């Protein structure tokens, strides 16, 4: 029987694999080893999720801690896909770091593992909706950091920023549509314009504008970089800013967690 107490037994070797793979790719080492190590880590960590699934006798997706497990699992996976697609050397370091943060929360804060979610959130849509959004937030976050870097240091990063924004936008789209499908399934409406959804729509438009602006005016670099920062500010509003927004108090279905 596998329990939460055994998490570190699996998490530690997996993290070691991912870290070594991340360092190797950062140094420009052999791609074969990078793939092998990352997949090794994924198998180790995936088997923990699988064993938890068996011992809980249900998919481990119901509590906050359980969804974080999937998050820690998917981050290196999507990192690896992005790496294989665009060969960014740093992407695995980034995904490993984020994955490690969520693993640490799960290992160090065992008391929240059994925190139950309210009935409306107990849906198979919950984990993918949140995981995909989190990954979108992560990639667009990196894009913004690179945009700021280029604004102040004048190093050309635009190709990478564009690619990350497109990946981020496509994940934002998927997360948003999963949310719509889930809402239709659970509440009968795809889109009810609650404050979180309104800001998600605004954020989505902002990134759409960025992508189209790059196509329309490829030479307008500084405006594009500044717009990238505005997009990210909008995203922050959507992510946590609305918790402090007077117009959104007490009416959002997305404030369950707090």
């Amino acid at each position, binding site marked *: 029987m596998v329990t939460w107490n055994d998490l570190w037994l699996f998490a530690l070797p997996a993290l070691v694999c991912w870290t070594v793979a991340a360092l190797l790719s950062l140094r420009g080492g052999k791609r074969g080893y990078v793939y092998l190590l990352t997949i090794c880590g994924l198998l180790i960590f995936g088997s923990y999720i699988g064993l938890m699934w068996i011992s809980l006798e249900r998919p481990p997706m119901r509590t906050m801690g359980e969804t974080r497990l999937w998050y820690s699992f998917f981050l290196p996976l999507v990192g690896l*896909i992005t790496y294989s*697609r665009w060969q960014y050397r740093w992407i695995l370091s980034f995904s490993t770091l984020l994955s490690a943060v969520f693993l640490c929360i799960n290992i160090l804060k065992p008391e929240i593992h059994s925190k*139950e979610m*309210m*009935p*409306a959130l*107990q*849906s198979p849509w919950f984990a993918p909706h949140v995981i995909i959004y989190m990954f979108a937030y992560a990639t667009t976050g990196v894009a913004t950091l690179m945009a700021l870097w280029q604004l102040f240091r004048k190093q050309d990063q635009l190709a990478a920023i564009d690619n990350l924004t*497109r*990946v981020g*936008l*496509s*994940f934002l*789209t*998927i997360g948003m*549509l999963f949310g*719509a*499908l889930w809402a*239709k*399934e*659970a*509440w*009968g*409406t*795809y*889109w009810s*314009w609650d*404050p979180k959804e*309104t*800001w998600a*729509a*605004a954020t989505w*438009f*902002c990134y*759409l*504008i960025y992508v*189209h*602006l790059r*196509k*329309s005016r490829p030479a307008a670099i500084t405006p594009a970089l500044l717009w990238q920062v505005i997009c990210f500010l*909008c995203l922050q*509003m959507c992510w946590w800013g*609305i918790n402090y*927004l*007077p*117009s*959104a108090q007490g009416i959002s279905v997305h404030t369950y967690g707090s």
Partner: protein
Amino acid sequence: MTMGCLVCCGLVAVGMLLQLTTGPVRWDAMASPVNIIVLTVLLLGILTMHLCRGKVRLFRWMATLQAGIPAMVACAMLTVLMGVTRQVPSGHQPTEPFGISSMLTFWPFVLSYTWLVVLVGMVCMTRLLQPSWRNIPFLLNHLGLFIALVAGTLGNADMQDLRMVVQEGKTEWRAVDSKHRVLQMPIGIELHDFSMELHESSLAPKSFSSAVSVYTKRGVVVSDTIRVNKPLTVRGWKIYQYSYDEARGNESDISVFELVRDPWLPFVYIGIFMMLAGALSIFVCKKW
């Protein structure tokens, strides 16, 4: 881009005038058959403009990024405005003279989104009429958005969203709409048993469910259990577990169901799945 910005400013100005003279947009007037007529006019309009693009510069311009980007900016700005103003619940009158507290019935908002949809329609038409494999990701994204937005908006007035309160042991054939009108339904629900599971620690509800039989005039259609996130579909009606007698909690002998019918749903789903495929296509296609 200047032209695009002017058009958007014009739309907002016209919208403001309409708002002040005719009041908020009345979406309930869009119910069938008006929505079918509007859809036909929209599609024929887009086709006509596309076919006349050789003669009219404006129509050619409408399928360009120079027209599209300002339209997106206008929609983004109005959506942000919606995000920072407190919105009244749907169906209520706005609380201030301009109408921005009910953004979905605010004319400038509706006109800006309509403009964007028309532009997306124009650009889809251009690509549709010159078929090529390379256009597929583009069409999945743009046509998907067009279909989802148009079907979702036009179909909204045809969507019925009713509440039905059923007593344990009784069969109910009446439901209440959002304006508290009582309607006779083509389906009836008999509630056998309402039950609730509680969290052991907090005694907060963990899940609640109703064992029901659903009837049409001809007899029993189905007997099943409806719970949160597990609706039941009967004759085009989706029946959701909505609420219960909260004062009595676990002892509640009534169950409240939400009954939804949405005839445009398949089209919205087609649009959504096209957009999903379009979003995934970035991992397959090398070129943007």
